[in-house]
């Protein structure tokens, strides 16, 4: 067995188990024993429903999405409504969570912050999934030198300390919500690409693919209609968990001052702004941090629930 293959085929497993924020989470839920056969979708749905945590996560996410969508109506104040006569005010009925260093309402900024945080999360996940699918499919389907070249490229990108590179990028180029989404996306597709490639390698040898190829089904159609659906579960789980990863990454970059432009309410920016005063007004740092933690927690629960529900092999 070639050593390279060892690493690469081992990778999906490592992805699932390692401590990466993007990585999977092993099951908390009791193992499922076999039941009366139903359709795979029904089985998955039933398994998902079985998991209280996943349902709880879904609920939290739904609430956050609603808050983000209806922020204008929900938030008691505007996102950038500065009030110099009310700087770092204590919580009151007027300002439930108090005000920040420019007199802006903390609760309103948390609500508006959900918008950007979720947007960055979902946007990044989509970018990374898209790139992951394209690279993974090409490498896995065509194999040969295309595969070698793409996988070497993946190796190089994985060898980059992403945090350093992203900080350099944003400090030089400046940043906007869009560039944050793009660059975070461009640094989080590699694991998915490897998973897809690995799956394709084994799927390719299967009879139904051989058959389809022999009757001249074009490559694109073959990949799209026959191969990708078989890795659908991996794609869905990876995308979900990447949302959580991206939200954390955005907060990290913004906290360091190189993420979404300052002034835009995101949870990371709020943490950045709260830091100079956090000994005197700790609530301004505690609130966005807790909100972010719960958001990520909820998404991770859902991702885990999906993994358990969609994994046809079941889990220990």
């Amino acid at each position, binding site marked *: 067995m070639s050593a390279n293959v060892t690493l690469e085929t081992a990778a999906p497993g490592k992805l699932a188990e390692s401590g990466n924020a993007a990585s999977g989470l092993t099951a908390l839920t009791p193992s499922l024993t076999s039941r009366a056969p139903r359709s795979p979708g029904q089985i998955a749905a039933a398994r998902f429903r079985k998991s209280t945590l996943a349902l709880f996560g879904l609920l939290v996410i739904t609430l956050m999405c609603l808050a983000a969508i209806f922020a204008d109506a929900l938030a008691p104040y505007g996102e*950038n409504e*500065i009030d110099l*006569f009310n700087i770092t005010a204590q919580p009151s009925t007027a300002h439930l969570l108090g005000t920040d260093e*420019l007199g802006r309402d903390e609760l309103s900024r948390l609500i508006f912050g959900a918008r950007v945080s979720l947007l960055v999360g979902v946007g990044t996940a989509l970018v990374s999934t898209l790139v992951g699918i394209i690279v993974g499919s090409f490498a896995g389907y065509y194999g040969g030198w295309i595969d070698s070249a793409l996988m070497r490229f993946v190796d190089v990108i994985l060898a980059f300390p992403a945090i350093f590179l992203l900080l350099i990028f944003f400090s030089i180029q400046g940043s906007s919500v869009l560039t944050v989404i793009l660059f975070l996306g461009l640094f989080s597709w590699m694991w998915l690409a490897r998973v897809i490639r690995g799956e394709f390698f084994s799927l390719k040898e299967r009879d139904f693919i051989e058959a389809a190829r022999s009757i001249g089904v074009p490559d694109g159609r073959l990949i799209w209609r026959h191969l990708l659906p078989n890795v659908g579960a991996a794609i869905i789980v990876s995308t979900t968990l990447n949302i959580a990863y991206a939200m954390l990454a955005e907060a990290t970059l913004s906290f360091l*001052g190189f993420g979404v*432009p300052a*002034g835009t309410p995101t949870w990371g920016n709020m943490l950045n702004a709260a830091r*100079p005063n956090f*000994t005197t007004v700790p609530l301004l740092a505690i609130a966005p941090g807790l909100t972010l933690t719960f958001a990520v927690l909820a998404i991770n629960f859902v991702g885990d629930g999906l993994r358990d529900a969609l994994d046809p092999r079941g889990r220990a």
Partner: protein
Amino acid sequence: MIDLTPRPERHGDGAPKLDSVNDLIQARIDGVISRRRLIRRAAELAIAAPVVGVMLHATSDKAFGAPSQGRPQALRRLAQEAGTVPADGPTAPEGEPQAGGTLTIGSNAEPDTLHPYVSQTVTAADVYVGIVENMVAYDSTQQLVPRLATAFEISDDGLIYTFDLREDVKFHNGDSFSGDDVIAVWKIIMDPDFGAFNTNGWDKVDDITLDGNQLVITTSEIYAPFMSYVGVERIAPKSAIEAGIDPFKQEYGRAPIGTGPFQFVEWKAKEQIVVEKFADYWGEAANLDQIIYRIVPDDNTQLVQLRTGEVQMVGSAGALSAIRVDEALGIEGITILEHATKDWYHVDLKHWDHLRMTKVRQALDFATPSQDIIDRLLKGRALVSVADQAPGSWAFNPDIAPRPYDVEQAKALLAEAGLTAGTEGVLEGPVPTDDPNVADGDVKPLEIELWFVAGDTQSEQVCQIVAQSWNSVGVKTSVLSQDISTIWGPEGYQFTEKMTGCFYSWSNGNDPTCKFYWHSEDIPDSPTGSGGNLPAYFHHYNFQEAIDELTIAADATTVQEDRGAVLFQIQELLHEEVPVIFIYWGKAFPAVADNVGGFWPSAFNYLLWNANEWYLT
């Protein structure tokens, strides 16, 4: 020879001898003639005006050294009400001075290098001034005081400077100090392969010769600020300089050697720099045994450590920011000092499209809540600014009233400038093309990009406030940031063809000259060129001729009263035309434990400048 120690008695009972450039300088240093008398007598002796400039520099009669009457007292009263203590003399705690001891200083930045010739940071100067000495130095009243030179002399034509060098001075490495060291410094600074950060003054030197302990510097042209560059240059030992360009640059910068009262001990990267008392110092040896300069890049921690006593002093580059003072005032056993700075904070406005119209700029000034920013954001710990001269100095025009925050007046002026509400309430109107006073171009929306240097929280906050106010009068303002090198680099906001502004501070020099900021000669000829007048890069100011004339006139006038009148006019013009929105003058807030004596910070020198006089009780 001019003796830098004031000794009025040397003139005896009779009138002082006032027959040459040096007589006049000596008499002025001794305090037996006034500045006005010096200028008048110089005129009688037919001394050329540029030489008078040199003399004034040598006697330190500059913007900051000569405060106007009354105003400093008022400022002091203000400081006391606010709980801070004006830094108008060395701290003198009760109790007996102790011999020895260790003082720990906190700083929120690390020096780039401790090399006096290549460093670009104040933090570095704060430390190396205690280690490497100069021939003469400025004290906190901006008077020249003797260091490695005991006396100096300027030739009547203002071209030759002679210094009497101190003998029996030892460097920390055991070398003896002599004029050869100064010559070596000159050579290395002017060596293009070395790449000194600043060659000002030295580039005017033709030759340096040594005659016993007298150092004779011949210059190629009269250069007024000669003493404030060459005179105060730090002197490294010749042996270190001649070790080679690379070793000198690299090794000396990490472990400097000088003749100062403290010698370098260690520099632990990102942690601390330690200096200790130099036993063989030529002058009064230091009281303290050791000074530890701790690097703690976090304001919260700085306060925590002041509270626990882990740090006993912060100052100069590491001084408290205005918004932290209230919190620091609550710390037992710590005194918060306060002194003026030379920094004026403003939003510059690029002369482009609508911003070329005076009415639009005036409207933006009305729409900027400067007083609220000072009172609320900075807790009143800054001075409102109307133009480019420091409140308290003789050059400051006290008769200009700042424009109040008045949204209605702002809107009225914008309407007068031909702007009407367009889509989403953003004002739009024709822009000027040739004549800045005639709006005859395309109709464009009034959209301004407001920039600040990334990472500077206070600037960011000011920009947010300004942006909200401007937006409320229909000027679409977005706040953007870039890191410090990009924003001032050739790709920065100053060179884009958009309406932009940026919030930052200029730091005035010791002389109130302001040509650098406004004159058309100081418009850079390319994005990498030099010059301070960047807002006028694309179009000259619509008052360019007037400001050109006035700034030249101000620099050519040596009589202070006359010069003051011209400077007053400049400030009136700036206030009227608003090329930049003047927001506030910063103040500095060093803090020191109540048992530290001899600490006397000011805007004229760096932290360790008189560290040999510091003591603990």
